[in-house]
Each structure stands twice: as C-alpha cells, then as structure tokens.
C-alpha cells in the first residue's frame, strides 16, 4: 500500500520532465499511474470486507507509523480517487493542452492524488493528519493555479485558511481521541468506541474533529470557500471539489462513526449541520447563473446530505451514505467535466449566454443529461437506486422531518438538473453556440465514462452493491451489513411522494426560468452578508487587531522600549520577592570618614551627571563617578580593580571627548523628556529594588569555599602571588580569553561602524 501512496508522489516529481519530453502524450503516461492503482484496487475487491493492513514504522518515538488499512470504506475511496483520477488526468491533458505551466499543474495534481490516497488508506492518526494537510496544501496550489488573477489568489487563501483552521482543530481532536482511546491506530480506536464515548475527553475531541471535517467538507457555516474554489481550472473542480478532497471530511466522520457515533451530541450536530448545509446549498444553487457555481453549490448540498446521513449512526444511514457517496462522485465528476467542455468550447459558462448547444456538442449533452438525471434521482439512473436507500434511512431515522427534508431536496434538485442539462443545450442557438464545437476526445472520455457508469449501475445495481457498497457500509457501521439495491420497487406512498416531488421540481424549473432574475436581485443584499462576507470581515478584523497591537508594542520609539523593559523587569522581580519571607540586613558597623566622603562625592557626581546640560559638565561628572568607584575599590582591598577602573575611566573620557567634540551644536538638555514623573518613578523603583535585593543577599550567610581554595592553590599550584591575576590568566583564563575577544571585536565593530559612516555617499 505504501507503493500505492508513493507512486503519485514520485510521478509528481517527474511530471514536468514528462511534459517537456512527451508534450501532449504526457497526460497519457501520467494517467497510467492512477489507472494502475485502480486496477490494483479492483483486483482486491474480494479482500475489502476482511480488510488488509500494512505497518511501516516512521517515528516510533512518537508512536507514529505509516500504517495503512484497506477496507470497504477506504477501498471505495481508492476506487473513486484512482478511477476519477485517471479520467481527470486525461481530461486535463486536453483542457490545458499547450498551457505554459502544464508540468506544474500535473505536479500539484499528482501530489494531491497521493495525499488523498494516503488520507483514506491511513490507519495511523498522525499519518492521516499528515495526508489531510497535504491535500489542503495541494488544493491551495491548484486553486491558485491561475495566480495572476487576484480572485484566484483570494480563493486559494480562503480555502487554505478555512480548511487550515479545521486542520488544526482536527490535530488537537485526533490527539485527544488517541489519548482517550489509548492508541494511535484508527482501527484500535474504532474498536475502543465505548471507552472513548465514556471518556472525559470525548466531547472536546468530538467537537474538534467535527470542526476539521466540517471545514474540509464545506459544511455550513464554513462552506464559503468551496464556491470560491471554482477559480481553479475545471479539471481541479471535477476532481477535488466533487469526488475527492471535499469528501475527506465525510470520510473521516464515516470512519469514526463506530467510535464516536450513537450519542445525542453526535447525531444532533450532524443532522442539524448536514440538514442546513444540504438545503441552503440547493437554494443558493438556484440563484446562480454560472454553470460551475451551480455545480459547486449542489456539491455543498450533497456534502451536507452525506453528513446528514452519517448523523444517526444507523445501519440504514451507513448504507445510504455510501450509496449516495458513489452516486454523487460519478454524476458530479461528469457534470463538472461537461461544464468544463462547455466553457472551453463555447467560451462562457454563464447560463444567460448559453442555449442551443445540443447541435454543436451532442456528446457532452448526452453525458450531462444522464448525469443530471442521476443527480435528480430519475429512474434508471444510479441516483434512483441510492434515493431509495436514502429514503429508507430517513424513515428509520425518525420519519416525518427527515423524509420531508429529503423530498424537498429532490424537488429542488430536479429544477437544478433542468438548469444544468436543459438550459444550455436546448432551445435557440445563442451567440456562443454558433462558435462552439464538440470537445476533443480527451475531454469527452471522462464525462462519457462516468455518465455511462451512472447509467450502468442504475440499471444493474448488483454490480456494485455487494462488491463495493456492502463492505463500505459495514466499515461505516462497524458491523457487517448487506446492501440491497433494487431498480424496481413496490409502489407505496413514499414512492408517490417522490413522483410528486419530480412534478413539482419540473414546475419549479419552468416557473423559475421567468422569475429567477428578480429573485437574484432581491436576495443579493441578504446573501452578501453571508459567511463569505464574514470571512472577509474576519480577515479585516484580524488585520486591524494586528496593526493595533503592533503599534501598541512597537511604536518605533526607543524611550518607550526602555521604559517598558525597566518597568516589566522591576515589577516581575519585585513580585518574585514575595515568594518567601524576605530578610534584610543593614550592616553599618564602624563607618570611616573617608568612606563616607568618597561615597557621598560619588553619589553627588552621579546626580550632577544626570542633571548636567552641557557636555563638559556631564563628562566631568561621569569621570568623577568612575574615579569614586575606583577609590571604593581601593578602600576595600582591590588594588588591581582600582587601577583598571582608573585607566578605563581615563580612556572613556578620552573617547567621550573625541566623540562629543564631533557633535556640533547639540545640548544635553533634558527638557525634551516629557513624562518626567513616570520616568522618575521607574528610576526610583529600580534603585529601590536593587537596594532591597542587595540587602537581602547580605542577610544570607556567604559560602567562601571558592575564595579560600584560590588563596590556598594560587602559589603552590599556579605559581602566582597575585590571586586576582592568577584567577584571570589561569583559574578562569577562559573568561579572560572571551574578554579580550570582546575588546578585539569592539574595535572591529567600531571600525565597521565608522566604515558605515563613509557609506553615506552611495547609500540608499
């Protein structure tokens, strides 16, 4: 299975090369990869029910493995991903023939394919997440493929941010689920359902995982990115936004249904969110005139329907979900490709400019018609079969409300099917239709193949019901199920209801053709406040918050920075003092006059330095402070320090003089420093804190081990009588080494700065 997942990644790496070498044949060679995977999966149909696993260690330290598991549900997905993938690769070869960046397109597409296969096959929680995020990433690049268009860039970002938000929630949710279930394998978690549902982390894990699924599968109110993603080239829409990526969320919900399902929270949330999404999507589809957008909204609706079906966590629901999953993938893939054909060949996909295409594009029309029929659930199509299963599920789930929701959805879908299949193709030839001609074979293979399958499975549902749908439904339900799919059913009142819905839908289509324009105008102000605008508002709000807080922290004024730094450090350190009893010492024994004089003069000099307004006075006062400190060192037994301090102070004054003399006409005026009270408070607090800290230290006993050892070892072991110097050049020579490097580097740094001054001539 690792090979299956890796194959598309490898082919992504060679895709640009293939395109350059083989030109238009590249798509055929690339299609071999998903084609082979499809064959691989078909050959393994028998083992779907039993399930097959493969575990390759990846990061054992974190218990992360490349664990794969092929069962009914993942098998169904693998078939869809590879099967539709093959058709889409061929289709893209025609759709984007001659495009300058076709190679790059295939890189992204194959990358996505690999990620998607990994996602559905992964049996490891983290591996699943890895592939999940990779699909988001690949979709970002695909949606933004026409990157010169600002709308494409916006749509790509919106898709990434919304699915990314969900992705992060999902990560947290999956980790919590793994902690609750005690394993990082999905197959273990599914078995540990009872433990998970009883765990304290169940609810947060459920909410977070749902958030991830809902964003990925475009559930209300996170759906807005999906219509936007129609900025992608049509092959992408046909692949990602119908059959694969958007179904990832549904896949995850279905996958975890045995572990998480069955609680009131799970069922209610999924029914409500799925129901809203399903109906809202259909109604919004009616308001569109862009063929692709209509399809996008029906996709949103279909995803809602799938969530709605998974919600009750019943056997009927599982059957219905997988049946509808397959149905939708087949018809929606075909419809998107057909819409792409119309766009490609007639130059527009706006319904208002399209009609009468049937002459020019008969094959496209046929594929569209069959697929639309399947979408509407007309008899003899696969849609009809899955609708029956769905209705059974609705009845089981609780009768009236679910059933009426589904019937209402049928009604709307019939009208939409009319918009998609009848409006562009029948009637008088529009201007665009005169120019149009049928799409090339590469672009017809996909829609025709998928539409044929809709028809074939509609006529002979047994072809898929046992081999594919039953194992998949079993995986969703967590126990073995059979799927009974019938074309002909005994007549009862629900069947009557369906035919009533068909009739009403047809009527709605006829009426709607006249009224639609007015409704679109009327609803526009309402819809422009929807989640899509909410996304914009959120982004703008984020930008405002960001720039506000950046101005707050980072106003570009050094004195604010220093003030904040000192304040924070003083406050936090002072607060820490209260972590224990503070003892202070006040040692004042036998103070000598000379000490007092030196101390007083040093303090006075410091104050003068602070208040000085002329350079000379400031420098002199600073020198006085330095000499005072040198004298203090002298008084307390540190001659080396005193000499060093004195010499350094001299050189500082020399440097100060050399620098200050070069700053003509400037005064050290303190007048500009406005918030004096605040600064004085900070300065006072800092001084006070240092006093308290030092007096506290002095109250503690001192451990003189080191000094005593130095005194003992200095002469016999290091052959030096000046202990300070011995410390400097021997005991702690590395300090001194670092210190001379500082002196050395200070010189170089100064030279570099002076060179920067010379750079002014040619500077920016």
């Amino acid at each position: 299975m690792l090979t299956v997942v890796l194959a598309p990644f490898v082919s992504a790496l060679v895709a640009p090369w293939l395109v350059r070498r083989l030109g238009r044949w590249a798509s055929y060679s690339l299609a071999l990869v998903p084609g082979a995977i499809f064959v691989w999966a078909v050959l393994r149909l028998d083992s779907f029910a039993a399930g097959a696993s493969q575990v390759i260690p990846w990061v054992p330290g974190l218990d992360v493995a490349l664990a794969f598991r092929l069962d009914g549900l993942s098998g169904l997905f693998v078939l869809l991903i590879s099967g539709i993938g093959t058709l889409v690769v061929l289709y893209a070869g025609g759709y984007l023939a001659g495009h300058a960046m076709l190679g790059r397109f295939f890189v992204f597409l194959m990358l996505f394919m690999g990620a998607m296969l990994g996602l559905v096959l992964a049996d490891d929680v983290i591996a699943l997440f890895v592939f999940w995020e990779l699909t988001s990433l690949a979709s970002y690049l695909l949606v933004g493929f026409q990157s010169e268009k600002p709308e494409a860039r916006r749509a790509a970002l919106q898709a990434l941010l919304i699915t990314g938000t969900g992705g992060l929630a999902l990560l947290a949710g999956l980790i919590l689920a793994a902690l609750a279930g005690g394993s990082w394998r999905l197959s273990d978690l599914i078995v540990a359902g009872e433990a998970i549902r009883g765990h304290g982390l169940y609810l947060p894990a459920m909410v977070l995982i749902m958030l991830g699924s809902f964003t990925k599968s475009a559930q209300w109110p996170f759906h807005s990115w999906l219509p936007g993603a129609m900025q992608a080239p049509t092959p992408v829409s046909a692949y990602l936004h119908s059959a694969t990526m958007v179904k990832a969320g549904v896949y995850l919900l279905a996958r975890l249904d045995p572990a998480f399902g069955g609680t009131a929270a799970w069922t209610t949330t999924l029914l409500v969110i799925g129901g809203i999404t399903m109906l809202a999507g259909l109604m919004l589809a009616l308001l569109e005139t862009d063929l692709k957008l209509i399809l996008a909204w029906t996709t949103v609706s279909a995803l809602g329907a799938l969530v709605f079906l998974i919600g009750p966590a019943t056997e009927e629901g599982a059957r219905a979900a997988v049946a509808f999953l397959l149905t939708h993938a087949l018809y929606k893939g075909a419809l998107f490709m057909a819409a792409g054909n119309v766009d490609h060949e007639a130059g527009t996909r706006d319904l208002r400019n399209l009609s009468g295409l049937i002459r020019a594009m008969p094959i496209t029309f046929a594929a569209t018609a069959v697929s639309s029929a399947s979408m509407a659930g007309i008899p003899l199509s696969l849609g009809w079969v899955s609708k029956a299963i769905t209705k059974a599920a609705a009845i089981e789930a609780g009768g009236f409300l679910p059933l009426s929701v589904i019937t209402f959805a049928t009604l709307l879908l019939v009208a939409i099917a009319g918009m998609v299949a009848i409006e562009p193709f029948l009637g008088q030839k529009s201007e665009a239709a005169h120019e149009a001609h049928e799409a090339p074979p590469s672009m017809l293979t996909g829609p025709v193949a998928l539409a044929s399958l809709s028809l074939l499975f509609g006529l002979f549902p047994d072809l898929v019901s046992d081999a594919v749908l039953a194992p998949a439904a079993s995986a969703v339900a967590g126990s073995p199920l059979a799927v009974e799919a019938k074309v002909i059913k005994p007549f009862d009142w629900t069947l009557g209801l369906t035919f009533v819905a068909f009739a009403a839908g047809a009527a709605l289509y006829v009426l709607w053709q006249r009224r639609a324009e007015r409704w679109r105008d009327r609803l526009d102000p309402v819809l422009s406040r929807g989640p899509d605008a909410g996304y914009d508002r959120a982004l703008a709000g984020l930008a405002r918050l960001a720039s506000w807080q950046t101005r707050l922290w980072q106003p570009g004024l050094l004195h604010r920075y220093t003030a904040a730094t000192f304040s924070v450090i003083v406050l936090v350190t002072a607060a820490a003092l209260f972590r224990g009893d503070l003892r202070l010492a006040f040692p004042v024994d036998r103070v000598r006059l000379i000490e007092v004089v030196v101390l007083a003069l040093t303090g006075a000099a410091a104050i003068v330095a602070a208040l000085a307004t002329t350079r000379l006075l400031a420098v002199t006062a600073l020198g006085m402070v330095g000499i005072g400190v040198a004298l203090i060192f002298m008084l307390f037994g540190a001659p080396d320090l005193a000499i060093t301090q004195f010499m350094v102070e001299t050189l500082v004054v020399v440097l100060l003089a050399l620098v200050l003399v070069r700053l003509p006409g400037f005064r050290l005026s303190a007048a500009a420093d406005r918030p004096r009270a605040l600064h004085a408070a900070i300065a006072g607090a800092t001084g006070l804190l240092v006093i308290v800290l030092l007096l506290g230290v002095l109250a503690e006993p001192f451990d003189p081990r080191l000094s005593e050892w130095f005194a003992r070892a200095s002469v016999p072991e290091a052959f030096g009588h000046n202990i300070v110097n011995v410390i400097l050049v021997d005991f702690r020579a590395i300090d001194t080494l670092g210190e001379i490097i500082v002196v050395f580097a200070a010189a170089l740094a100064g030279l570099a700065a002076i060179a920067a001054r010379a750079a002014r001539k040619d500077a920016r």
Partner: protein
Amino acid sequence: MELPLVLLIGLLTAVATWLMLSRNLIRLLLGFAVLGNAVNLSIFVAGRLTRDAPPLVPLDAETIAGAFANPLPQALVLTAIVIGFGLLAFALVLAWVAYERLGTVRTDEMRVAEPPEEKT
C-alpha cells in the same frame, strides 16, 4: 559598612535608569556607564566587603596568613569593567555615526527602520 555602599549603588542605579530612559542617545549612554559602575559594585558587594588586605600572597609565603579580600569578585569585576568599556566604546562610535547619518542624537527622531505609519 555595606549599607552606605548599597545605598550608593541604589542611587547610582536610579540615576542611571533615569538617564537611560532619556530620548537623548548620549544621555542614554552616560546612563549605561553609570549603571555599569553600579552593577560592578553590586558584584563587589555580593562577594562581601572587607577592609582587610588585598588578595596578594606575600612573595615569601605559600598562602595568606590573615583575612583577605575576596579575590573572585575582583576578577569578575575586572572582566566586567573591560567588557563594559568595550561595549561603551562601540556605542559611542555608533552614536557619532548615527548623528552623522541620521542628523540627530534624539532617538525619537530616528524613524528610518520603523517609520511612523502614514495616517490614511
């Protein structure tokens, strides 16, 4: 005898902080110099003060007989003094270069790297 010195350190710290909060770069650097002195004295005090002999072993002896000043803080302070000097020397050069390139030593007028936002 430590108390008066600690009070002086506190005073130096307060003065230095006050100077470092200034918008004038030269005053800020003066503040750094003063604060450096205060911190060096703190290390000195933290090693405990003594008026005893400096840490020099008599040339004819193996060890110091009586009490002596703690040599370790002295070595540390010596290192700190030189490092502080290196930093200050560079900072002074930088102040001069800043004045020549930016035309000011007032930090609130240095707005090249973080330009104030235009009001829109």
